[in-house]
């Protein structure tokens, strides 16, 4: 054996056969693939259901709400009530409470199940905000955000607005509606009127009466004079100015949003 430079022969790593390096590099690269896939899966939404190796009784042979059952022609697992039957909770025993009518004409008083107090008005205000505000606006003047958007669409070509037509939601404080009886208001909310759909399916009966009470409160408040508000003299004349500002700002914003 000839003695080469001592240093070099000591450094064993360089004496390893080439194959070891290739294998090590390959394994390191391979080890980076799973984390890359995981990071991708974590950072991007995906369209496919999760992979489900172990089923764990996750899907049991039973039906939950709104599931599909192909045994029925309409694919609904939830069945409709048999025609001519009425669920116990949906019984219409008391037309005054459930339909807003007394002896075939609109009721003029609240039914005995409803007590008009501050709680009812608060409830009515909240429910009005959910179900009526989109069209009729926060104070019922018929200028809600959906109305504003629909008016914008009307200004566009029919090919862009896809044939949008729109009837302005009524100003709930105008005389023709302020003079209506509570029964008629209740009936309109339940069954709709002309271009407005009925809300009986979305709003429980008691809440509909609460909305009626709140609509009446809005009507009274709309006509109220300064004298009827305690301490009104000292209040600054803010409200009307603010309302205009808000609607104008909203419309401007909408226009910009649409243009871009």
């Amino acid at each position: 054996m000839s003695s080469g430079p001592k240093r070099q022969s000591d450094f064993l790593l360089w004496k390893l056969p080439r194959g070891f390096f290739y294998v090590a590099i390959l394994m390191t690269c391979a080890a980076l693939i799973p984390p890359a896939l995981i990071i991708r899966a974590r950072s991007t939404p995906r369209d496919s259901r999760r992979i489900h190796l172990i089923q764990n009784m996750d899907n049991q042979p039973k039906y939950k709400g709104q599931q599909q059952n192909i045994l029925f022609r309409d694919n609904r697992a939830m069945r409709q009530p048999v025609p001519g039957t009425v669920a116990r909770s949906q019984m219409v025993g008391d037309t005054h409470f459930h339909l807003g009518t007394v002896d075939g004409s609109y009721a003029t008083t609240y039914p005995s199940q409803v007590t008009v107090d501050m709680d009812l008005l608060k409830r009515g205000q909240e429910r009005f905000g959910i179900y009526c505000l989109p069209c009729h606006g926060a104070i019922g003047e018929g200028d809600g955000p959906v109305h504003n958007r629909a008016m914008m669409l009307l200004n566009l070509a029919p090919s862009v607005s896809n044939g949008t037509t729109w009837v302005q939601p009524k100003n709930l404080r105008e005389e023709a509606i302020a003079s209506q009886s509570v029964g008629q208001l209740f009936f309109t909310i339940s069954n709709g009127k002309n271009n407005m759909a009925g809300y009986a399916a979305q709003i429980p009966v008691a809440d509909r009466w609460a909305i009626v009470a709140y609509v009446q409160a809005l009507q009274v408040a709309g006509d109220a004079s300064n004298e009827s508000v305690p301490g009104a003299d000292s209040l600054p004349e803010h409200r009307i100015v603010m309302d205009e500002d808000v609607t104008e700002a909203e419309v401007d914003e909408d226009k910009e949003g649409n243009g871009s």
Partner: protein
Amino acid sequence: MGRYHFVFPRWSNLLLPAIIVFALTAPPYVVFMVAWGFSPKTTDVGYMPTQPVPFSHAVHAGELGIDCRYCHNTVEYTAMAAIPPTQTCMNCHLQVHPDSVKLKPLFESYETGMPVEWIKVHDLPDYAYFNHAAHVNRGVSCVECHGRIDTMEVVHQVEPLSMKWCLDCHREPQPHLRDPDLVTQLEWGWAMTDAERIAEGTKWAEINQLQPSQDCSTCHR
């Protein structure tokens, strides 16, 4: 030449440390990858199916400001926050965009009475019981479990919905509670500092006397 003797080359001394290094790194690597990769945060979060109608919460709940309960109107009364029936959309869409191709499946459903086949996004296993009314009426907002739905064009899952995730909140609900009247105001509280948010949550936990249960039978019944 004499008989052949196999002699380990000198570099084979390196194999021992190499094997030790491999034995020390490989098992933790595998364990970590399985735990990380098969965690519901990887497999479940981000599920975003394409729906039959390109319905946008960002437009309806965000821009138009329609309250969640206008459409998901059972959420306060029942376990299930039902997907709205076709009629609910028709309240507006008989007049707005009636000829839109995007709304075609909706109008077909309206005419034939067949349901629109929405694809379920959030889906618990059938052995777990969940109740919307119990949470929503006690001041747990939609945003804690569904994220900022009002900014999503297409709904996707943002929370793992695993048992650990449920229990984390049931053990310490304070940072997640608010006034039950504000549960559908998803942007509420985002400008608060952590301390303010927890103080607010603690207040409502006391007002409503909340003690979320950790018994197995609460969720497995």
